[in-house]
């Protein structure tokens, strides 16, 4: 690393709370969901279903709070997609990282995510997670479909979309956890997600697009 590092407070208490709560919920949903799918046996089917439903509803409620928080604090702007430096970031992970180069985009208060993260997190929170929640809710309310005029749905289709999303989420989880090790130290990103404080190079100049008006 070139130059000195400075500490910046990046993640507020609520952000850290929702991140880790969501992490636990998703991992437990993954475990119970795969058990319901018949992949392995851990809690027993009945318990797994019950846990999965409770966890799912809990997550949904949490998700509503997250969205509300993002909207009211303006933090949703962290997810505005951009192509600026996108290529550089991709190139960095494909080669630069092996040569010990510096990350082309450093974190700052106004730009917590690099362009690649923006894209991935936007797709995740705007498409994959809602789709997972909607199919999950439908799956859960299967018996009430006729009441809601949803009889045209097929449980098989709903269940398979739910499963497909689950696999996509699992793949995301694998990559996401790995990516936490790519900071200036192996545990830097994880530590920051606990403490809220991230270390960034002192001399890093933020670019215009990385600043947004509050």
């Amino acid at each position, binding site marked *: 690393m070139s130059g000195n590092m400075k500490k910046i407070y990046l993640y507020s208490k609520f952000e850290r709370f929702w991140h880790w709560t969501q992490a636990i919920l998703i991992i437990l949903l993954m475990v119970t969901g795969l058990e319901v799918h*018949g992949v392995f046996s851990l809690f027993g089917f009945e318990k797994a279903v019950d846990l999965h439903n409770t966890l799912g509803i809990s997550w949904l*409620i949490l998700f509503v709070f997250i969205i509300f928080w993002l909207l009211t604090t303006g933090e949703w702007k962290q997810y505005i997609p951009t192509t600026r430096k996108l290529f550089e970031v991709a190139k960095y992970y494909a080669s630069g990282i092996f040569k010990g180069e510096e990350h082309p985009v450093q974190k700052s208060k106004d730009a917590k995510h690099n362009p690649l993260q923006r894209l991935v997190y936007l797709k995740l929170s705007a498409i994959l997670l809602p789709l997972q929640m909607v199919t999950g809710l439908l799956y859960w309310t299967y018996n009430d479909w006729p009441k809601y005029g949803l009889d045209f749905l097929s449980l098989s289709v709903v*269940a398979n979309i739910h*499963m497909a999303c689950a696999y*996509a989420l699992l793949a995301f989880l694998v990559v996401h956890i790995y990516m936490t090790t*790519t900071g200036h130290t192996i545990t830097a990103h994880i530590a920051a997600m606990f403490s809220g404080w991230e270390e960034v190079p002192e001399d890093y100049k933020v670019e215009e697009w990385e600043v947004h008006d509050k």
Partner: protein
Amino acid sequence: MKLMRNSLLLLSAVVFLCASAFAAGDTAPGRQMARQATKGKELWITADHSKFDALKQPFKSGPEVTKACLSCHTEAGHQFHKTIHWTWLDPKAEKELKVGKGGLVVNNFCINIQSNEPRCTSCHAGYGWKNKDFDFSSQEKIDCLVCHEQTGTYKKFPSGAGNPAPPPGKKFKGNGKFYAAPEWNNVAQSVGRPTRKNCGTCHFYGGGGDGVKHGDLDSSMLKPAKTLDVHMGMDGQNFSCTRCHTTVKHDIAGRIYSTPAATERKSLLEDDLGSKIMCESCHSARPHKSELGMKLNDHTDKLACQSCHIPTFARELPTKMWWDWSTAGRKKDGKPYVEKGEWGKPVYMTKKGDMRWEKNVVPEYYWFNGTIDTITAQTTIDPTKPVQVSKPVGSIDDKNSRIMPFKVHRGMTPYDKVNKNIVIPHLFGKDKDAFWKGYNWENAVAYGMKYAGLPFSGEVGFVETEYVYPTTHMVAPKENTVACEECHSKQGRLAKMTCFYMPGRDASSIVDAGGWFVVIASAVGVLLHALGRIFMSGRKED
């Protein structure tokens, strides 16, 4: 885990607050009324039959007793004549079809009663149905005692066409037991409401022996433990049969051939006057109370309660599962013989052929709307595949159908190879044509079919047959019900019911294969990336 779950529950408080609004069922007025209607064990009996002069006469026969009964119970005779216990015919089916065991319906046990009356009708609630000439209009021939006597001494003679043994009594060669002639005054003065013993006298021993037929009704139900039947358990609710099989004018609630048990799923919660024969009548369609139970309640639209609550039948005594008539007639040293197997049950009888018994049997499951379709000796069959002598009616598309557990009794049954129908063999009798005397199928069938007024080509073959019994007794306590994964797994109880998607069993192989491919590819990708970083950074430090 528990702590975290509780915290999550807190998080979900909003949702559960809403949900609790639906959980008010226990105080529903209908339920309270149902409890009141069935709670009192003390009956409001106002008559002691031992004090009636009409019952103090010196009776010499059953019909004399019946006459005495009818002198007070003036309407009982008309009422009883209309019931299936008397007619042995399905009241809902067209007369010409002769649906019912008193008609031309066949089963794969002893097949049909025509020409075999004296043996079969020993379970008829009447006296003397020994041939076609039985007078169904005679009220005196009703046997009131078999259902109402309470001494426990009243026994009909097994081959007596519904009559008890003549004085002083008689030994029955079939089982070597002595049947004493009734002490008519004693039994007549003992009458009361039917007990389990009264009903069980016939219903536990159908097919000629204990547990032969139903699998969920045998003599173990006389004094069952709660673990065998949660309703009838002596250490539990101690229900008698009549608690659920309610009766109006001698017409007893229960399933009869083509009549669905209930076409509308009415609960006593909704209507206190509903028939009490369904589980739902007392338990409602949302019977599970716990938080876990909410999902179980969602099952009641597709699953009969019995499917989960009767994990196995014949839990204490074995029941007959296979009866191969084609091997009947073999002799040892020129004599008929019996070979006994496990549990002391016959596995071969010269009279009846090979048979198989099973205990603790896992039921088979079918869609069922409460109706059973039966064939008669006139129905044309396809002998190239197993013939469903009786079959459950229902399908996933019928909203009144649910998945129901069945005992399926299979066997090889005689049929007419040319006319392609199940035949009625003349089994019982002292004449040489009777199979159990002459052991000649052609003669026995020719006699039986002629007796029934049906054509016979002269050629007897054997066809595999299936006969179904809905499993509805031997309801286990909730701790012993069928676990979720017994169905929600790749090879579960419902493996054959592929007409719907079931979580835990079904999956799209494309989604699964594709999904795991993406997940594993991601894992391999990051692993290679990590190795690259370790390897390259090692070089960089040089």
